[in-house]
């Protein structure tokens, strides 16, 4: 108690040196660390994708041997999903959720610190496998047995890295829910919460429900390899297909764990730059919750070709189709928000509109693959690669980048360079389409995924795809430059930053002081976000 009093007295006291970051319990510092970590991992994973695209630039084996190529494919996915996308989302949540609900900090600051610092250890485990006997994981990020069990010394490191990542994200999720449920400012009712907060509550529940199942699955792999169990070993009465069921029971909700925070971000951005309240707030909340609920009943659409009974295929096909309904509600609500708004197109808005357009492309190709009979053609071709990269890169990463541009003036107190921001958007958008759109064509023509070589008929498109990839990769350096420039200085940002911005976070000074909302603000209908 006395500690708390002392703490309050020294309102703006910041711990100094490395200790400020190592032992931080401040949601803003931890948010910053998450975002920086995600950015580093984005470039680590990105470097791996550059290796992949260099190898695929021409048919034949050019630069890397096939085993290493497979490692690149596998670890690229793991690093991007668990190292870049999820920490970026958690970073945004750490920064913004307390500010948006008028809370002084996260509910469990010490746990917040731990959930961040687990990440560097987990990725040290994962990336150290490159230097081990047998190399890094190369059986695909889905870790299907029996292939994954053939991995050498790196195997237990892979399993424990997944355990740590799971623990980290579960702790982060628990913290977010505990914060929102207990620390809202007076008057901040659930239906007044900004949609970004809603998106994160729902994501957090998905995390708590899905991540432990993955942890269970990889534990079974571990005991199968070292302790003589036979969960997935046919010789001992197990079944490798069962792993796919366990994995995708986690894997499909995971897709929404990644995408919902991005949806939340653009639900903040679009009303701001349309200068209109979000259209259909209530339906947005229910649509997001329905997407999350349905995501637990569609997993087997990832495995239509394993030999399921017809009834099973039909069930999972219809369940998959049904997710298009709440997703459509969200897309149309965003469009209706822009309808007749007085729109301006600053960088965050450009990225948000980019999400709307290009996520929909990924959504439609997803619907195509949800149709069981045609999935037999698309399965494990570049068509699926095109699909999930459209959903992840311009769908999720653009949303996160939009959020960074949107809140960067709030975080740093300086406006970013708008010209560079727009340049970043346009180069990224053009190159991302050059990169991923032709994958639809070569996929339909039959090019299989996860193979370092290909038939010469795919050569032209692959060169074009690789060029798109290199340009996209290089253009992300613009983001780094914009962020560094903005942190160092620039035109001072106002408290509200954006003309159309509403909500508690915009009532604070830019940058916000180290401790905010130590006295909770009063929220009324007029000051509420929607």
């Amino acid at each position, binding site marked *: 108690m006395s500690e708390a009093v002392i703490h309050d007295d020294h309102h703006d006291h910041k711990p100094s040196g490395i200790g400020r970051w190592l032992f931080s319990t401040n949601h803003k510092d931890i948010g910053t660390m998450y975002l920086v970590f995600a950015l580093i991992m984005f470039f680590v994973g990105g470097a791996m994708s550059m290796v992949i695209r260099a190898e695929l630039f021409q048919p034949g084996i050019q630069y890397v041997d096939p085993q290493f190529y497979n490692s690149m494919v596998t670890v690229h996915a793991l690093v991007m999903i668990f190292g870049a996308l999820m920490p970026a989302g958690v970073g945004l949540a750490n920064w913004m959720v307390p500010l948006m609900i008028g809370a002084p900090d996260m509910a*469990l600051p010490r746990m917040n610190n731990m959930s961040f610092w687990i990440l560097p250890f987990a990725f040290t485990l994962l990336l150290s496998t490159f230097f081990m006997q047998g190399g890094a994981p190369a059986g695909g990020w889905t870790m299907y047995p029996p292939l994954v069990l053939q991995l050498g010394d790196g195997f237990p490191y892979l399993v424990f890295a997944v355990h740590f990542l799971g623990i980290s994200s*579960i702790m982060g999720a628990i913290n977010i829910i505990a914060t929102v449920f207990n620390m809202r400012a007076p008057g901040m009712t659930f239906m007044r919460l900004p949609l970004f907060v809603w998106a994160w509550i729902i994501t957090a529940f998905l995390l*708590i429900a899905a991540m432990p199942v993955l942890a269970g699955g990889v534990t*079974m792999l571990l005991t199968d390899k070292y302790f003589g*169990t036979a969960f997935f070993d046919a010789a001992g009465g197990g*079944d490798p297909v069962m792993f796919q*069921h366990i994995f995708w029971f986690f894997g499909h909700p995971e897709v929404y764990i990644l995408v919902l925070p991005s949806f939340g971000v653009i639900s903040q951005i679009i009303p701001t730059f349309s200068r209109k309240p979000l259209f259909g707030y209530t339906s947005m909340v229910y649509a997001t919750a329905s997407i999350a609920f349905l995501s637990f009943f569609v997993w087997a659409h990832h495995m239509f070709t394993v030999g399921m009974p017809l009834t099973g295929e039909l069930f999972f096909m219809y369940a998959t189709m049904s997710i298009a309904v709440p997703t459509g509600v969200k897309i149309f609500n965003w469009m209706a928000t822009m309808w007749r708004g007085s729109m301006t197109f600053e960088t965050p808005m450009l990225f948000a509109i980019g999400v709307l357009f290009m996520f929909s492309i990924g959504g439609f190709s997803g619907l195509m693959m949800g149709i069981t009979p045609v999935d037999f053609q698309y399965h494990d071709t570049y068509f699926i690669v095109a699909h999930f990269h459209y959903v992840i890169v311009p769908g999720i990463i653009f949303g996160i980048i939009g959020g960074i541009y949107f809140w960067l003036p709030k975080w740093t107190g300086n406006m970013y360079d708008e010209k560079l921001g727009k340049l970043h958007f346009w180069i990224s958008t053009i190159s991302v389409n050059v990169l991923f759109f032709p994958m639809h064509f070569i996929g339909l023509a039959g090019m299989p995924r996860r193979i370092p070589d290909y038939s010469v008929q795919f050569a032209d498109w692959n060169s074009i795809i690789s060029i798109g990839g290199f340009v996209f990769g290089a253009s992300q350096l613009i983001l780094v430059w914009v962020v560094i420039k903005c942190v160092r200085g620039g035109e001072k940002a106002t408290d509200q930053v954006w003309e159309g911005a509403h909500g508690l976070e915009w009532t604070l000074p830019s940058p916000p002081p180290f401790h905010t909302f130590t006295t909770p603000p009063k929220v009324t209908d007029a000051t509420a976000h929607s």
Partner: protein
Amino acid sequence: MNLMKNNATKTAKKLGLVAVAMFGFGYLMVPIYNVLCEVTGINGKTGQISQSEVKIEDVDPDRLVTVEFDTNVNPNLPWTFKAKKFKQRVRPGEIAEAIFIVKNESTNSVVGQAIPSVAPELASLFFNKTECFCFVNQTLAPGETKEMVVRYVVGSELPEKITTMTLSYTFFKASEDVATKTIIDQKKSIKNNG
């Protein structure tokens, strides 16, 4: 403030329990999966009955179904494995016998385990074995050839539309761990896998 903290800790504990429960659910998916496969016949898992349970009056004298035999050997196992006859015609309800010839091609003594599967899935629900070399681990001395027997009954309730079914075996190498484990698990898994 303190009240808020206490409530937050309570929420966190509840959510922690949910996470632990979901970890358990991951493991629960294993028996659920096995039961589901058994009930629906997915995976072609076959049943086992004792000889005394087979009733002679169940035999359908006017009907014959073809049972085909398919044999596979996992690459880790240095054995050859063939059916003596590739197919036979049996009357539903009658006990039939098939013989397989297995040879150890290596210079070591090796333990193998055969895993059966029946297609079509629907037929597997009516396929029961009274005796099978797949019930236990098989050990072959270097170069040894052995005839292995399976006795089975195709249930007389087998739907009319099924006239042909395939019994497929894959022989796996039973590793040291798995070998001991399978013996322990045998009693359990026989019920599920036959």
